[in-house]
């Protein structure tokens, strides 16, 4: 029952050996396919019921060719852009092409059959057209849409069972099932999906996805009809070649060599300490090899990142370090030679639990790659990382309805956003998560019995540097009813690292029953920790790392930061060697140039 995910990810044969299509036509076809992806994603937003889909943008639409190679995409979150290709490939190989019929729609969510984690549902539909060469109607493309759902069955609501022993404990697995058979809905199958999920809206959301895949299939059919099968297939191969070529050109400009780095996740949800990631990145001409040999392979760990997930985070980080205009398609991924030994936390043996591991060590894949490449690409080394652990789930009985509520704390807060060369970090999260659209107090306080007292930036929490990391939020929430908290916290021992001489951001810390005489500071996991009506939880989210030596930061910029209370007067002196006179309260702050110069000189020589 073990599917070889590495084999699944291997390059697929090209459809056209030597595409003769002209670049303008290929570009026109690519634009049309990306527009279809946008239309599919928009369809889900318009028709889904739950906020996670219609509001937070956790969805990805893609077009694959008949081999399961990525042709075009509209992406919600870069890290997840790849998880839609492997489930389709599994379906193609398991069922065989003959089982893909016009009007079919498939559903898949299993991490060990190509997916990310169980709550990510992939829905896909083939596109058929008449082949003028053979006179036969055949599959040309596949439209696919992937969305994160709020539940997936299993022991714990929400899809994150961080004490599960295996993937079965995390939720229901659907390697691939046909929900629409040649245009006819399979009610038995849809009903089975429905009863294996806690959320009443789940099936509505899944229907939105099915509708989107059908729309995508229809629209792609129009494009194939307009341009012809030959032109479309040649255009797909042309654009894949083009992306691969542009990728190799970028790599060729990097200095040859092998660059290594290590990073750690504080612990897994069971408290196993210091989950270790090691990478060796070899630049050899225009070849890029990323090798995770040496990464933690303790078999008793709880949180694992499947090969597909690891590959997605790898590609997302590399994409953030390249020209943003290179098309994201199969050519981009195939150009990376990725080595992840079977059995390490980044490529588990089958059926290990993954719900927490998707995020950690998943996210740290990006971190360790940025750390390795900072030695040669310092100006592009901005880890596209989060240190979320899993969402902070609060559950209790809502007295207004008498029903159980499950609050995933999906509110906006700032954290873990690193600076880039030439730019202080800004906003709330790294750029890769910029498509998220998180909830606010005025949305969630009417849905859940809580009060959001604060999410302001924490002073001095941004990593010092020539360019400053973003401050993390001081996030305080009061529950208005008795409730319990379920979560997993990382980033305490290992906060966001600085780059190129920048300093790390402040670490995470979560305190349940904050301010009471019985506070619970989360060490690794909160397993339904009680919190009483009127009590608060406080999540001090970690800051982003700084970029470059903080002693090189312009003193005026430090003064401005103090005026804006991103940095304290003490922080200016301690972290930046900038001495200020006067007071913030009466706006008389000024730089003491002589003292600053002297202090900075002393710090430099003291190293």
């Amino acid at each position, binding site marked *: 029952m073990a599917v070889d995910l590495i084999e699944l990810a291997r390059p697929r044969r090209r459809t056209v050996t030597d595409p003769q299509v002209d670049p303008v036509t290929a570009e026109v076809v690519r634009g049309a396919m990306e527009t279809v992806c946008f239309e599919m994603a928009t369809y889900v937003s318009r028709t889904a019921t739950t906020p996670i889909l219609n509001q937070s943008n956790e969805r990805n639409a893609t077009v694959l060719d008949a081999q399961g190679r990525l042709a075009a995409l509209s992406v919600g979150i870069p890290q997840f852009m790849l998880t839609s290709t492997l489930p389709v490939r599994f379906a193609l190989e398991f069922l065989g092409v003959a089982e893909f019929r016009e009007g079919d729609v498939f559903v898949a969510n299993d991490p060990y059959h190509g997916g990310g984690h169980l709550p990510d549902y992939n829905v896909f539909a083939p596109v058929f057209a008449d082949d003028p060469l053979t006179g036969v109607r055949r599959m040309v493309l596949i439209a696919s849409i992937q969305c994160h759902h709020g539940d997936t069955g299993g022991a714990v609501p929400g899809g994150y069972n961080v004490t599960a022993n295996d993937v079965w404990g995390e939720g229901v697995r659907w390697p691939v099932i046909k929900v629409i058979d040649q245009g006819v809905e399979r009610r038995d199958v849809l009903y089975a999906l429905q009863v294996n999920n806690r959320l009443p809206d789940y099936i509505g959301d899944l229907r939105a996805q099915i509708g989107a895949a059908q729309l995508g299939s229809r629209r792609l059919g129009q494009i194939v009809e307009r341009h012809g099968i030959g032109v479309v297939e040649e255009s797909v191969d042309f654009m894949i070649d083009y992306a691969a070529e542009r990728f190799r050109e970028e790599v060729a400009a990097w200095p040859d060599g092998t660059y290594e780095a290590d990073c750690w996740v504080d612990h897994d949800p069971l408290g196993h300490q210091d989950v270790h990631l090691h990478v060796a990145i070899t630049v050899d001409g225009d070849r890029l090899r990323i090798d995770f040999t040496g990464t933690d392979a303790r078999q008793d760990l709880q949180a694992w990142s499947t090969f597909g997930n690891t590959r997605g985070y790898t590609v997302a980080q590399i994409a953030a370090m390249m020209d943003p205009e290179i098309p994201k398609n199969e050519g981009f991924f195939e150009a990376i030679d990725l080595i992840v030994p079977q059995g390490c936390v980044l490529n588990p043996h089958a059926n290990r639990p993954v719900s927490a591991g998707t995020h950690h060590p998943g996210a740290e894949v990006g971190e360790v790659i940025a750390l390795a490449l900072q030695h040669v690409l310092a100006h592009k080394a901005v880890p596209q990382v989060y240190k979320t652990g899993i969402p902070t789930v609060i559950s209790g009985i809502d007295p207004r309805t008498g029903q159980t509520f499950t609050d995933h704390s999906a509110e906006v807060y700032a954290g873990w956003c690193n600076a880039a060369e030439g730019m202080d970090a800004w906003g709330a999260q790294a750029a890769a998560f*910029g498509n998220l659209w998180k909830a606010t107090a*005025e949305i969630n306080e009417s849905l859940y019995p809580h009060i959001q007292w604060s999410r302001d930036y924490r002073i001095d929490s941004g990593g010092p540097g020539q360019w400053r990391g973003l401050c993390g939020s001081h996030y305080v929430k009061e529950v208005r009813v008795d409730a319990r908290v379920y979560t997993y916290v990382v980033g305490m021992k290992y906060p966001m690292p600085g780059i190129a001489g920048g300093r790390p951001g402040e670490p995470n810390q979560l305190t349940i029953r904050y301010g009471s005489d019985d506070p619970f500071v989360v060490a690794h996991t909160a397993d339904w920790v009680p919190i009483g009506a009127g009590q608060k939880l406080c999540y001090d989210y970690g800051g982003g790392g700084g970029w470059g030596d903080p002693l090189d930061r312009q003193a005026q910029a430090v003064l401005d930061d103090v005026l804006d209370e991103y940095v304290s007067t003490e922080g200016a002196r301690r972290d930046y060697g900038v001495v200020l006179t006067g007071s913030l309260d009466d706006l008389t702050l000024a730089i003491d140039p002589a003292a600053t110069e002297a202090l900075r000189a002393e710090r430099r020589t003291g190293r």
Partner: protein
Amino acid sequence: MSTTDIGPPHLGSRIGVDVGGTFTDLICITPDGQVLLDKTPTTPDDQSIGVMTGLAQLAERFGLDLGTFCAGLGTVVHGTTTADNTMIEQDGAAVGLLVTEGHRDEIEMRRVHKEQIWDPSYPAPFPIARRRNRIAIPERVDFEGEVLVPLDEDAVRAGVRRLRQLGAESLAVMFLFSFVNPDHERRARELILEEYPEVTHISLSHEVMPRGPEFERTSTTLVNAYVAPRVSSYVGGLSRRLRDAGYEGELLIMASTGGVMPPATVARRAVALLGSGPTGGVMGAAAAARRAGRSDFVAVDMGGTSFDICLVRNGEPEISIDWNWRYRYYIGMPMVDVQAVGAGGGSIARVRQGSLLVGPESAGSSPGPACYGRGGTVATVTDADAVLGFLPLTGFAGGLMTLDLAAARAVVNADVAEPLGIDVIDAAWGIERIVNANMANATRRVLAGSGVDPRHLDLIAYGGNGPVHAWAIAAELGLDRILVPKAAPAFSALGLLVSDYKVDLTRSYVTPLSRLDLDHLHALLADLEAEVTDELDPTGLPAEAVVRSRYVQMAYAGQNFDMSVPAPSRDLPADAELMELAERFHDRHEADRGFSFRDQDPTVRGVRITALGRVAKPLTLAQLGTVTDAGEAQTGSRPVHFGDGFVDTPVFDGSTFASGAHVRGPALVEEPFTVVVVPPGASLRLGEHTSYELSLDG
């Protein structure tokens, strides 16, 4: 002095004045239905100077002095870009914000949104109020309006003093749930006026945008605070000039909803002017389409730098309430949903790494395309149009310009043909295909938001380059019928006068339907009714010309989009009213989204009133010629490339066409400011409604 002997025909005339980047356009419609157009250069430093110059020109055409002319006017409606210019030039007021403690940084966090997900070096938007200018105030109200923490008045006073010390002149107040309970914001205004009586402007978030959520309201309120001082001083100045000139009516200002606002409302909600620029054009297009009997269409305006798209259904432009971003700030105002992409005549074509890209960078109008001969040195869409034969080389742009074909060929060759290793004609055609595909894709994306299939729509094309490219865009979209209104050059000004007055107001009230307090609901609706009356009063419309619609905004728990459900009448018994509301919501959800959850208790999110004040429409939109047999209007022919080699193509002078004149493609029909391209196999006919009807199917 007046020399008319049949009485002054201008008495009661309505004037539309639209300030554009280059020209200020004026339109005057007399009570007997005559239409006069005029234009004068825009005066960027003080737009009102150009406005008054234009009015003087119009007065002269009636043989009147400015005073007599102005004294006799019925209404003056004005479209201004002052708010947009303030954001573009980033020279608005110094703004300070008083904000609920703990929520000081919403404006920077932007609900996590960043525009460029692949670019970690993409910079932050310019700050309207830096963090030091955002003062946290202890106070808190919950979602039902209950006070959890009373307003700390000392903190407000101290905050105001600090903001004053920091040089803030325009103050904004943003307290959580102020749209449910505005007491704290109102009290803050009193305290501001006590501490800082000479403050230039105060923006209270619940007045600017009376709904949640807080990021959207913070952003909207800050932008309002930033632009309001300059906008209200401009509007006040123009009102004075008009009054001094003898105008006795109220000056009405076009808002981005397509409605108009009196100066008093502008002073309070200047942000509603933002993005109003393209609105007039859409309203003009809607008027032309209505005249031609078309009600469902997509309006596309292709100018020099941008391609503006707006979906119109049932004759009404789509209004977008969510996701209105302007200048990287969220504007939580209903806006006519005009979306722009960087595709225009000036869009630059270049080859990057073997791939041909067109736009979004633009050569604009200066230096402009190389063929303008104004120093442009890079290939643009207009250069490609010239190379392919679509444009007249002499008499371009109303006879103002001669095009330099050799220059166009040279840049297309150097920038595109050589890098791609193809000849200059293929290169020009490549530019054409890419820009047309970009515009078609952008149009599809706009339609996707409403789930509309373009094949069921007409295309209304205008702007200098719209009629040149309409045929190709339509073909990409798979639609057949295109309308090119002759009145298009006057659309922006015309739109000001044909727009029905629209008021669209909402109040938040969040509760499960089962616990809805009907008295409270109807009290909110009554409040809104009173506001509607205040806003429409200055338009002088008779009550019977105003249609009001009352809605309850509803959604299923957790849904992001509200649905407007017609409010049941008050005379039903309470439980019947609730049941009626639930039924209407489920039915509507079923009809619009294809499903409903009849066993769920829907959430009420607020009330909404829209009021539509219908204005009298002009009798004619454009003057037609007298030639019914198009052959008589042929002025020559030239070779044109429609994608399959050059074909000799007859050229017609469209300005001489009478209604009913028709041509078959290939043909070019030249108008003073554009060319209508009729490809082989298509046909074109000028309708009595003064628009060209182009059918690709022939």
